[in-house]
């Protein structure tokens, strides 16, 4: 009961941001620390019973070589500037509207073209080997952040259900519950939110399911309890509050593609050379910076992911 109360307190209030940053520096700074971090990860599982892992709870995670060393966006900005239409179309509102959202109990059904369909309880998911993944996040609207996610490769989860050879795409579905998601009471988008990835994109080591940020479980407004993060794609591909993952044969139709087929394509890879029909994608404003900076191809992850799209016309497959 005592622990449950802690959910009401925003994580930002429990631990000052500078502490996170120092911790992050500490973890990243010395390679030798990695082993110790790993040990504490195991220790953490013993000490903290899984049922108590709620919003604002610390997570143990090991560092990752995929992380960027760029300056991280302050937690307050990451939690108060959210495109989360299930709560509101206004980016400043989810922080408040998500306050009473309870991401428990929660299960993620993984089904479709798999040998071993399975329903994962969120507490099982949180026991996976977690990593800190500090990624750039580029929103299709032209702003960006650097977010220290905590998560694990989607491929780990998919590996457990053994997709069969017919599975070509992965379709993700968010929770549909207009009582808990006030934004779903209006049909501003077709609910529930659906997103999709090609199999090779889903299995890519950069693609993660995030369960936390800044070392703690995900704040509700950032997609608690579990969300997708695909750092080389526009932010809206990062579907939040996932309840279902389905392996399918045909390319899924994403919610935003349904809303605007000529504006939001299936791939939605960050690409400074392919403009949104209504605005340029050549530059972006990093939250916290005054000057716009040039947007990088594949959001700067070209070395890792460009080969996925060899021979494809990225203007057509936007």
């Amino acid at each position, binding site marked *: 009961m005592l622990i449950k109360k802690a959910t009401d307190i925003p994580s930002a209030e429990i631990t000052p941001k500078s502490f996170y940053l120092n911790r992050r520096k500490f973890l990243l700074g010395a390679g030798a620390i990695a082993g110790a971090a790993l040990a504490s990860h195991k220790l953490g599982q013993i000490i903290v019973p899984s049922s108590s892992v709620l919003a604002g709870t610390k997570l143990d995670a090991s560092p990752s070589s995929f992380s960027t060393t760029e300056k991280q966006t302050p937690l*307050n*900005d990451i939690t*108060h*500037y959210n495109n989360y*239409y299930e709560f509101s*179309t206004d*980016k*400043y509102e989810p922080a408040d509207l998500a306050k009473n959202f309870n991401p428990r109990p929660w299960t993620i059904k993984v089904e479709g073209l798999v040998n071993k369909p399975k329903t994962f309880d969120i507490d099982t998911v949180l026991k996976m080997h977690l990593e800190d993944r500090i990624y750039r996040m580029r929103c299709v*609207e032209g*702003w960006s952040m650097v977010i220290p996610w905590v998560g694990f490769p989607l491929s780990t989860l998919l590996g457990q259900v053994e997709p069969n050879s017919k599975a070509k795409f992965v379709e993700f579905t968010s929770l549909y519950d207009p009582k808990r998601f006030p934004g779903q009471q209006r049909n*501003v*988008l077709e609910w529930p939110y659906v997103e999709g990835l090609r199999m090779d994109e889903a299995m890519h080591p950069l693609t993660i399911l995030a369960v936390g940020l800044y070392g703690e479980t995900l704040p509700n407004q950032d997609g608690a309890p579990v969300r997708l993060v695909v750092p080389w794609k526009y932010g809206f591909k990062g579907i939040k509050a996932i309840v279902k993952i389905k392996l399918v044969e045909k390319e899924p139709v994403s919610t935003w593609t349904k*809303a*605007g087929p000529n504006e939001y394509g299936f791939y939605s890879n960050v690409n400074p050379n392919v403009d949104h029909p*209504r*605005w*340029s994608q*050549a*530059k972006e*404003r990093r*939250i*916290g910076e*005054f*000057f*716009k900076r040039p947007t990088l191809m594949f959001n700067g992850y070209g070395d890792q992911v460009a080969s996925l799209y060899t021979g494809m016309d990225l203007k057509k497959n936007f």
Partner: protein
Amino acid sequence: MKPKYLKPIVFLACLIPLGRLGWRALTAGLGANPIQVITWSTGTWTLVFLVVTLSITPARKLTKQYWLIQFRRMFGLFAFFYACLHFTTYVWLDQFFDWHSITKDIAKRPFITVGFTAFVLLIPLAVTSTQASIRRLGKRWQRVHRLIFVSAVLGVIHYIWLVKKDIRRPVIYASILGVLLAYRLIVWSWGRFRASSNAHPASIGRRTIPVE
């Protein structure tokens, strides 16, 4: 009914949106994306003042509070003032004088094209807002100042086109503007109807009700 000091009070009230923005910037801050907040706020208040300016004529006629006319110019000029701030925010804070990118935006992005046009159309209205201009232009003054309708319509289109999906707010402005335009249309048609049905010698040469 109308105290002497009403005008300065209204004038100061029109500066509240700007003052509030400045106050927030200096105290609590403008959130994660301050430049966007400034852009939205100045843009919103431009539309508000355009709509308020266009409400004066119907309001004074329907309520018979004819003295309201003296505020029309002030509100119109405040619409232009906030439009200038909005445009400056875009050119300075958002684009940082990247003229290549700005000209490309204006030419290529329909929402910026219409927004820019709406702004440019307000310039002659602001310039000819003086008493001297009204005297000098005579009847032509009113014709020139009907450009405000075009500017307001383009402003609302600008808003609708920039929104990603949720067009509730721009639709509110579109509806109010629709009502204000419909009022003029009704008054104008009524005037024409009256003029034609009263076409006996006594009313020849009578002017129709002017559309403001």
